């Protein structure tokens, strides 16, 4: 046989061998992929689709950059005095938009700081002030020139703004540093810093200029398993001091605020969580209810709470409220329900007239009472947030945040009559996830969105008694969703290998109590959650270097011997379970914190990032402060060796811990 013949004969053999080799790689590879998907999803029926996790979720990859796009996400609106223009903060566009109402288009787009939040206009209409949440500043915008002319530093996470009637001073709610900046606009300096409640958010000034009202989103510090109570901070504008701290019992996430024209009422939006009750049902307000709070100044600051929900329909995530110039109506944006509630304030006055205090307590929980004062539910686009009324009160403008659109409501007809597209464009994979995250339509009767317990992807500082592991036991501390991407497994028990599993059918079974997310929805939702980055670290110096205190704290964190020189066993050192860069070993560990109602003793080691903004602490939220982790809940040095530390050393350690994590480029949405 010729060589050529041998070659011809060998060719099929080689091809066959190559085919078999290919199969040997492909079949295990396929099996591995199937197993991987099943493991990650927790579902035997999940389809084998690599693209959502490995391509679409990767914002920074070349394909991810190609597929994703930037959105504006309008958040807050101010209306020019002549009613000709709107000024809109674009939260994700880092710009202030000037919208021409006659031409119904964006007239100009003015770059401001990062994550612009609120906007107010000077009395003469020439300037706008914009709070920049992640630049920790207020931008001064010359509206004629269409450019920023100054940037005033304030506290951390500035959100709501209110100008004094003469326009000489500006109150700024600093959400992260829990205080209120009073800016002197003449000198351009911060005149005062006033202590607020927990996470101050919106600000409104009485029209007589006598008082400033500041809402606080989170509950003031709680004893373990006590109902939340959020504060409305009242600043005496004359003395420029805090004049009163009013409390909304059993409520939190107080975000929007407006005052009635005579100033008799301060009207706020609020959420009433039922986190202390076992989460066995969500119908009839057993998980959350949403409503209005009223401070009746005419009656000595009486605090009133009224629901905006119906018995079988819920209107999640009330965000902003505006009162018409005649004081007859209030409009509330429900960001999770895509609805504006029109509220008859006169009907509320009649309802409250002569009502005894015990009836007020019942009304706060009575879902039938809203029938008396909610006169219309106006459907909107996705995620309605900021509201503003035209000066004559005839038009209501609605920032449809996740549609990049402003809707215009006819106040007399109570219906949307027009809309201004700010540049919405196509829906990307992550934008879809973002919409799902904020949409309460994926719970049984609209009871809550993901955002309801994770505002801005963060946490609500509450603990919950969830059903699957038995009621009255295994209380869990709600955690932030920021920066989760590399920190699997999830849940305090570490039982979920992925967020796909965490948010899958069991989530529908035990929490939303309705149809689970479809596979495509789940991919998009998880992709969005994984895209949430930690906020910029408040305790980090701009240079990135540690302070002296933090350096001393780092030494404590990394130490291997006690103050007495005794060696610390490796398993009892901070760095063993909390190694950089995420400061978690992603393992379950028993640190002696299991309580009498816990069925587990080991808990997933949390990553350490922006800890100052994550309280309460430990798996069940029993530690109100970082200090308590060691001073109260590790008496036997089971949670790292710390009993030998001096008070000063513990302070150093905590200062160091607060500096960990965070990012310079928050993509919080």
């Amino acid at each position, binding site marked *: 046989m010729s060589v050529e013949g041998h070659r011809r004969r060998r060719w099929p053999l080689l091809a066959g061998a190559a085919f078999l080799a290919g199969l040997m790689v492909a079949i295990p590879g396929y099996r591995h992929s199937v197993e991987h998907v099943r493991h990650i999803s927790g579902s035997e029926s999940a389809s084998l689709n690599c693209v959502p996790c490995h391509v679409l979720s990767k914002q920074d990859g070349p394909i991810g950059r190609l597929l994703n796009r930037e959105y504006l996400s309008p958040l807050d609106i101010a209306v020019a005095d002549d009613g000709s223009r709107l000024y809109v903060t674009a939260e994700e566009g880092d710009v202030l938009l000037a919208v021409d109402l006659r031409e119904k288009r964006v007239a100009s787009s003015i770059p401001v700081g990062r994550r612009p939040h609120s906007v107010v206009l000077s009395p003469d209409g020439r300037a706008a002030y914009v709070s920049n949440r992640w630049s920790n500043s207020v931008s001064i915008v010359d509206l004629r020139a269409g450019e920023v002319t100054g940037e005033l530093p304030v506290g951390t996470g500035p959100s709501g703004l209110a100008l004094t009637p003469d326009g000489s001073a500006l109150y700024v709610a600093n959400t992260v540093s829990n205080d209120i900046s009073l800016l002197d606009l003449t000198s351009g300096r911060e005149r005062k810093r006033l202590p607020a409640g927990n996470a101050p958010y919106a600000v409104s000034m009485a029209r007589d200029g006598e008082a400033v009202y500041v809402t606080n989103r989170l509950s003031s510090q709680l004893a373990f398993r006590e109902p939340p109570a959020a504060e409305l901070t009242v600043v005496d504008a004359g003395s420029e001091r805090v004049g009163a701290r009013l409390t909304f019992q059993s409520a939190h996430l107080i975000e929007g605020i407006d005052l009635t024209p005579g100033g008799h009422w301060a009207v706020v939006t609020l959420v009433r969580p039922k986190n*202390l009750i076992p989460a066995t049902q969500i119908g*009839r307000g057993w998980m959350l209810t949403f409503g209005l709070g009223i401070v009746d100044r005419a009656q000595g600051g009486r605090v009133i709470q009224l629901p905006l929900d119906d*018995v079988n329909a819920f209107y999640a995530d009330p965000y902003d409220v505006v009162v018409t110039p005649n004081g007859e109506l209030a409009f509330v944006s429900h960001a999770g329900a895509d609805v504006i509630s029109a509220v008859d304030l006169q009907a509320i006055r009649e309802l409250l007239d002569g009502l005894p205090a015990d009836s007020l307590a019942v009304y706060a929980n009575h*879902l039938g009472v809203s029938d008396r004062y909610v006169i219309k539910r106006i459907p909107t686009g996705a995620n309605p947030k900021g509201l503003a009324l035209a000066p004559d009160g005839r038009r209501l403008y609605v920032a449809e945040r996740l549609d990049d659109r402003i809707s215009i409501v006819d106040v007399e007809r109570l219906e949307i009559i027009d809309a201004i597209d700010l540049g919405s464009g196509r829906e990307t994979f992550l934008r879809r996830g973002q919409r799902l995250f904020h949409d309460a339509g994926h719970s049984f009767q609209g009871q809550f969105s993901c955002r309801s317990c994770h505002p801005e992807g963060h946490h609500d500082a509450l603990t919950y008694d969830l059903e699957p592991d038995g009621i009255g036991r295994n209380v869990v501390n709600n955690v932030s969703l920021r920066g989760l991407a590399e920190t699997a497994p999830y849940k305090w028990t570490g039982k979920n290998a992925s967020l796909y599993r965490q948010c899958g059918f069991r989530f529908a079974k035990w929490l939303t109590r309705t149809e*689970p997310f479809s596979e495509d929805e789940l991919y998009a939702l998880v992709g969005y959650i994984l895209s949430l980055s930690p906020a910029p670290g408040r305790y980090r110096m701009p240079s990135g270097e540690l302070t002296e205190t933090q350096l001393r704290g780092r030494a404590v964190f990394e130490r291997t011997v006690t103050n007495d020189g005794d060696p610390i066993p490796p398993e009892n050192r901070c760095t063993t379970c909390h190694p950089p860069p995420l400061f978690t070993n992603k393992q379950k560990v028993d640190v002696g914190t299991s309580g009498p*109602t816990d069925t587990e003793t080991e808990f997933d080691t949390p990553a350490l990032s922006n800890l100052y903004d994550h309280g309460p602490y430990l798996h069940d939220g029993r530690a109100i402060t970082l200090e308590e982790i060691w001073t109260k809940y590790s008496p036997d040095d089971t949670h790292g060796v710390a009993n030998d530390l001096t008070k000063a050393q513990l302070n150093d350690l905590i200062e160091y811990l607060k500096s960990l994590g965070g990012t310079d480029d928050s993509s919080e949405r």
Partner: protein
Amino acid sequence: MRIDRLRGRGVVAGAVLASLGIAGVLASRTGARPASGVIVFTQVPAGVAAPGGPDLSQRYPTGSRIVSYDPLEPEVGVRVLTEDFHSARAPAVSPDGSRMAFSGQKQGGGPWQIWELELERGRSRLLTPTEGATDPAYLADGGIVFSAPAAHGTAEPRHALFTAAPDAADPRPITFHPAEDSSPTVLLDGRLLFVTRGFAASTESRRMTMRADGTAAELFYENRDGGRQTGRARETPDDRVVFVESSARENADPVAPGGRLIAVSGRRPLHSRIDLGSGIEGEFHSVVPLSSDELLVSYRPPDRARYGLYAFEPLTGRLDPLLDPDPGYDATEPIVAIARPAPKRFESVVDLQRDTGELYCLDADHSDLPADRQPGSSASIASVRILSATGILGEVPLEADGSFYIELPADSPVRLETLDGAGRVVRGPSSWIWVRPNERRGCIGCHEDRELAPENRAPLAVEKPPVTLPSVASEAPSDGTHGPDEVGR
């Protein structure tokens, strides 16, 4: 009959439903096959009581049949869809509009069972062999719910609700109380809405909702003035629920099924009742929405002997006959054979490997009744007694905050009554309730306002394991001073 106008109405109604994202059924227009958006209804022969009344025989009207009528082809008249059956009634169309489940009796004297007809092909098949089964409705997962006789601690069989999986195998009961359950409708949010009627007093009927696995059963609507609920309720596109309600006062004939046409808001059903037919004489029998503004009703004018089908505009009170009434039949139970949005399905918490469920109460002393209507309200409640259909399951002391937490046999009816420190009954017994295996139910308190959300407070009782019932030395027979008054008769 004003055919021309109704033809237009058919188009408008079809357009309204299509605008809800509904695709019409592509069905043959020959033979006995319904076309897109045709009307399907039950014809009950004259002399046979129409379905819907409290009498059991009314669930199985001999000689009844299911027919279709196409408003766009009025010249064709009605077409019989169940020619192969001796009797048939209670049609329900699948969400995709392709199939019709119904209760049928193949031969005279034979059992009534649930059948399914392929609307396009006209072929029928037995869905479930359960005898006496009626009132089928399609579930979100493709299975069905229906009403059929059951005996749960009662001497006489009663009608409970059952569900069967999409393959129709192994129907299981999902209601477990001594009452007659019938006329289920599957709401868009996935809940079942059905009529339940107490044994002793035939006029005491309510509409209840629950999940399709039998969990979370609760009152949806009742008329405390004695309104008797008849037939299925239906959802309208604008989130109302419409149904027929009668009262003994209104009906000289105690078994007459007809009555007033009522609408309630789905958002607040207990306090939003509107008589849509106010001022209209005659009786309504059954209803199905065509749009937010128009209903298709089975209606009998005061001067007519038989029910006919009418298009009804509640806003104007206008009633227009859909087709010439057949003097030999009552036209009842209309539906529209068209695709519609599927109800939401949900993941069930029921675990059939378990035989117990749990019940906890936040404060047994809580009552929404006015002080003068609270029997023994001045007494301090010390414990709660749990009654089964046959006796006492046990007594559980209340925690300091009034809470209690019990584990009790699943799928068994219980009632609760509160006791003072001397063991005297303060309030109760309550209505019958049950828990499904692995279900955990919570309540605010006895006589809680059904529109009240709970106060955010951790109940002390759940800090400990539940008290398991029946407890030792319980199961004693009822002493006659309390307990079930509708059981075992």
